[in-house]
Structure formats: C-alpha cells, structure tokens
C-alpha cells in the first residue's frame, strides 16, 4: 500500500520547500499588490501613471531586447565556428566560454569599471590616439550596461548553441552542398532552420536574465540607468516602500512568465524535427 505513495513520499521534502518558501512568499508578494489602499488595480495604475516608472520599465525592456539581439548574433556565429572547428580546438574554445560563465557576475561586471571609467583603459587609449573630445563619459550610460550584459550572456549563448549545432548531422550539410547549394545557401536553408529551437532557448535565457539583472546595471549603470532590478532594490531597501517594490516584482514575474511560455509555444510550432 505504501508503495503506491513512495514517489510522493520521496519528493515530499523538495516539494514542501518549493511550495512553502517559493510559491507562498512570491504569491504573497504578488497578492499584496491587489490589496493596497488604492484598490485592486490601484498599484498598477499608479505604476503606469508615473512617467519615471514607465521610463524604467521601457528602458529595461529596451536593454533586455538589445542585449538579446546582440547576444544571439554574436553567439550564433561564434557557436557555428566552434561546432565546425577541429575537435582539439573545439574543447579549448568550449573551456574558454565556460570559464567566464562560471566566474561570478560581480567580477565580470567589475571588469567594465576598469575598462570604461573616466580614467579607464578605453578612454586612456582614445586620449593617447588623440581622439577629439576624449575622455568621454562612458560609464553610467545605457550603452555601457548593454555592452556589459552582452559580455555576460554571450558565453551562455555559445554553449547553448554549440550543443544544438553539433547535433546537426554532417550528412545533411553534405547532401545540401552536393545538391548544388552554396555554403551561404546551406547556412540559411539547412543550418539556420535546424538551429531555431536552440536560438529560441538561448533568447529566452538571455532576455529573462537581462530583464531581471541587478548586479551589472547597478555597477555599470548606477542611479542614472535605473532598471527594474535596481529599482526594486531601491524601493525595498532605500525608500522602504514595499507596496511599490511588490508591484515591480509582480511585473517582473508576469513579463518573465509571458516570455517563457510564449516562446516555448513558438519553439514547439517552429521545430522542423517535430511533425
């Protein structure tokens, strides 16, 4: 009799932890946004009614979207080279992508403080080259945040896509070229369509990761490039406005879930391997 519930018994501790310490607290945070003094939707109307808050939301979406597009482009082309490289080189290149990925976000963002600061390497080089107007203010700009985030997510994209591209059978590529397709046509009509599911997975990872990032925008963007993550922290820990912080948290959850669910649907439909 016990045997019928054995699966439940063994997964019970992990289930209990996720339900009690994740679903309940996050649910409570989201629930709290509907029970403020301003009425059920009051906190959201207040959020969208404030020009500053709208700007933060749009800026975050813009940064996340641009980061995703750049990471996709750079990651896909690099992963293609890695997947077609000789075996010995391939493992070196994979190690070189894993190393930054396992190094913490703080360390990798901090590197851009040294690079992009007013007396940073890039500005020193520009001054040395005699570029007019140098040094430029580069840190604490939206561009700096995007560059640092692309840096953060390209390794993840490379590793996601190398796995997908390696699984494309060589026969397919040979068949395509022996039937007269140019390398570019093969790339566009055979390799790219087969890589689409991987591209979607990578895009979801990068978009949700950069939409909810905290450390990089905080270090590289500071107060002048406020995004949802840094804004949530500021409202919760500096302004102590937990209603406002909860509203930001709820919007982040909704956007993340919408992107994940929406893209998974599209991925299923586009997968050329499925019938």
């Amino acid at each position, binding site marked *: 009799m016990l045997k019928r519930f054995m699966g439940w018994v063994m997964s019970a501790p992990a289930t209990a932890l996720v339900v009690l310490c994740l679903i309940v607290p996050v649910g409570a945070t989201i629930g709290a946004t509907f029970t403020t003094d301003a009425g059920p939707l009051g906190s959201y109307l207040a959020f969208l009614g404030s020009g500053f808050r709208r700007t933060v939301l749009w800026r975050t979406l813009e940064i996340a979207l641009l980061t995703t597009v750049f990471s996709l482009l750079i990651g896909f082309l690099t992963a293609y080279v890695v997947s077609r490289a000789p075996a010995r080189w391939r493992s070196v290149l994979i190690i070189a992508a894993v*190393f930054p990925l396992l190094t913490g976000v703080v*360390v990798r963002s901090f590197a*851009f*403080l*040294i690079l992009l600061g007013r007396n940073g*390497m890039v500005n020193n080089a520009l001054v040395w080259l005699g570029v007019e107007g140098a040094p430029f203010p580069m840190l604490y700009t939206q561009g700096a945040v995007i560059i640092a985030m692309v840096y953060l997510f390209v390794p993840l994209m490379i590793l996601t896509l190398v796995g997908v591209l390696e699984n494309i059978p060589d026969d397919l590529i040979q068949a395509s070229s022996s039937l007269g397709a140019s390398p570019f046509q093969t790339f566009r009509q055979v390799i790219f369509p087969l890589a689409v599911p991987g591209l979607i997975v990578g895009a979801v990872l990068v978009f949700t990761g950069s939409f*909810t990032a905290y450390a990089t925008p*905080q270090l590289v963007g500071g107060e002048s490039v406020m995004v949802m993550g840094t804004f*949530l922290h500021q409202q919760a820990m500096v302004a102590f406005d937990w209603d406002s912080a909860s509203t930001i948290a709820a919007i982040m959850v909704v956007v993340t879930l919408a992107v994940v669910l929406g893209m998974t649907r599209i991925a299923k439909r586009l997968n050329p391997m499925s019938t």
Partner: protein
Amino acid sequence: MTGRLHPGLIAFAVLVYIFLMGPLIIVIGSSLSDTTFLTFPPQGLSLRWFERIFEMAAFRRTMVTSFQVATLATCFALIIGIPAAYALNRYRVQLPGWLSTLFVLPILVPEIVLGFSLLRSVQVGAGLPVFSTLLIGHTLLVLPYCVRVISASLASFDFSIEEAAISLGSPPWKTFFTVVLPNVRSGVIAAFILAFITSINDVSVALFLTGPGISTLPIQILAHVEQFFDPVIASVSVLLMFLTVAVMAVVERTLGLTFLTK
C-alpha cells in the same frame, strides 16, 4: 567535421574570444598593481592587495559566511533533491508531469523577486533569523541544478539492476546507497559543483537577506566598490577566478567539460 569555414567567420570568432577573455585578463593585471588606485597595465608588481584582503575583517567574515552558506545550502539541496530526482525517474507513472516543472520554478522566478519575497514573508513575516532565511534562499536557488543534473544521470540508469539486488534479498534502503547512488556518482559531483558555484556567486537573493554582521562576499564586493576604487577588489576577483578554475578541473575529471553544453 572540419567543413570549410569562411575566413571572415574565423576572424569574427577570434575577436569574440578576445572580447570574452580581455576583461578577465585586465582584472588579473590590475590585481598585481603596486598603486593605490585601479589601473591597467599594472604599475609596479606586488601582491600586497592580496594580503590586504585578509587584513580586512569584512572580507574575511563574508568569505567565511559565503562558504558556510554555499556548503550547507548545497548539502540540503542534495539531501532533498536526490530522492526527488529518484522519484521522478523511478515512479514516473504515479507522479504527475507538473512535479518536475515545480522543481525548476526557482530558475523561472526572477532571483531578485525571490530574494525580496523571502525578506517580506519569511524573514520579516515569519520572523526567521537572517542566516536561516539566506540558507533557505540559496537551497531553493540551487535545488533545480541538483534535481535536473541527477535526473539526467538517473535517466540512463537501468532500474532492473536495483530490482535484481532487491529480489536477491538486499533491503531497499541499502540498495539505494550501494547500487543506485554509486551509479550516479558523477551526476552528484557535478550537481554539487554547479550548486556550490551558483551559491558563491549569487547577488540577487543575498541582496535582501543580509543583516548586522551577516553578509556574503559578492554583496561585500558591491558595497566596497561603491566607496573605494582600489585594487583590493581585483584581488578578490582573482581569488574567485581561482575557485572557478578549481571547479572546472573537477568537472573535467568527473564528466568532461562538454557536459556543460548539454
């Protein structure tokens, strides 16, 4: 598989790898500088900023906290994650499909939202101490890695071996430890390492769960950078990179690094 690659593509990949490695090399270089400000290339070589880390009580203390939290959270996640992964594979028929999604939820929910919600409901709401809440947060954060990596190992485990042991008279719990667990050893090691490194590097959850005397290393680094711009942060970063190298060496020995592309 050495198809012809366009030279332009190869040049592009080389540039991308320079972009990936460059900033890390600059951090290493700056950590060796003899100056009191951050600069690259380093002016005068010295290891004094590495000594300085250990002279500063805040760094020593947060390093210890980070290691304690990472070790304990990873162990807890393995203790509850291994049976869950086992159940998902062994009792696939009796368990609903959404259960495996449930264990991935900590990755789907934005970390910063999890951190804030734990502060709101568990630390302030339920009155749990800061350290316990931090531990709960990190256990949740690393649980998906433990369940998924060990599930993947168990997927290729032939459960008829276990049945054979049991039918030959071995008690089920003993069979689990002597037959099942040794077969997924490499999965457990990989899960441990991935979980540990995730916890050590976490910012977004720990951000809300620090209190008087309790903080983690990444949070301390963030706080320090906001006030000072000296090479000590570069030195701490290099120490963390050593940790990464050590981790990669262990993964390479147990599973091979290509494991991470799957």
